[in-house]
């Protein structure tokens, strides 16, 4: 009996044509610190490759408390080996506190990991976040390492 069935891989187009399987998670309050706090970025590892993600900065009050989001630890810390050379050189996005709203439109990107730090420089200026993602049924081990050192620009 065959037990080692082939798995769908990241190039399996029909997996992206279906709607995503729900995945919702978040940080604890003020869990995402700035780099100067001496902590590592918060790392979210999805069990399957994403079809799309939508992120919300759930911090309230101080509008300087922006959330920094990247696809690699180096990227979110802007310390990667292969950052973009055109325009903005930092391979991360920042999300304002807004009105508790998710990124709209949803971000249709395939990834298995997201990294978060606070973009507000200084101790005690932590932020928090919430993610909602639509997952494919492609296992995360089928995704290539999405890093600058693996040849991907715009990741870090």
């Amino acid at each position: 009996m065959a037990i080692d069935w082939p798995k769908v891989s990241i190039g399996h187009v029909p997996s992206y044509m279906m709607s995503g399987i729900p995945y919702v998670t978040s940080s604890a309050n003020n869990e995402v610190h700035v780099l100067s706090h001496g902590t590592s970025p918060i790392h979210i590892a999805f069990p399957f490759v994403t079809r799309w993600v939508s992120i919300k900065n759930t911090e309230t009050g101080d509008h300087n408390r922006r959330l920094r989001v990247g696809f690699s630890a180096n990227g979110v810390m802007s310390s990667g080996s292969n950052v973009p050379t055109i325009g903005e050189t930092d391979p991360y996005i920042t999300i304002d506190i807004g009105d508790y709203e998710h990124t709209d439109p949803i971000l249709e990107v395939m990834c298995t990991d997201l990294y978060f730090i606070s973009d507000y420089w200084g101790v005690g200026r932590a932020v928090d976040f919430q993610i909602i993602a639509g997952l494919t049924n492609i296992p995360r081990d089928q995704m290539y390492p999405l890093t600058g050192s693996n040849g991907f620009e715009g990741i870090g």
Partner: protein
Amino acid sequence: MSFNWPKSGNNHVPSYQISGIPFVTSSVVNEAPSKGVDSYAKVAFPFVTRFFVVKCPTTVGGVATADNLRVAFSANGLIEPTGSYSASGNNRNYFIVMEGKETPRFEMRCKELFFCGDGIQGTGKSSFEVIAGLTTIESSQFFGLTGSNGFEGVG
């Protein structure tokens, strides 16, 4: 004559490629109860969703909604987290829709949504409106979308 025709399963791709069958529903004012164990309002879709949008209206019939809205994919998903982020669960597996706001169009497949208020236990009730595009996949063909069934990120 055969009666037991095969049904399309939840991975039937063409079902997600055609436009959704409209499904619209809403609560009465403050029908989503305040947070607490087994305290929720539930919308069960007759077919698997292709997408949905949730709104938390400021008023329903001229009566004000009391608080923001919590939305989850299981009853357990509405429960408060008990610690810092953990890959094995233990997080906020719900999202919040602020009063007067609505979500983007979430292209997500599910057969149930669970709602409660995000405010103070006992008084923080909320209201909701849902518009969904449904596939032709019967909800009985969908898996149990719960943490105990192996799904992370739903509670």
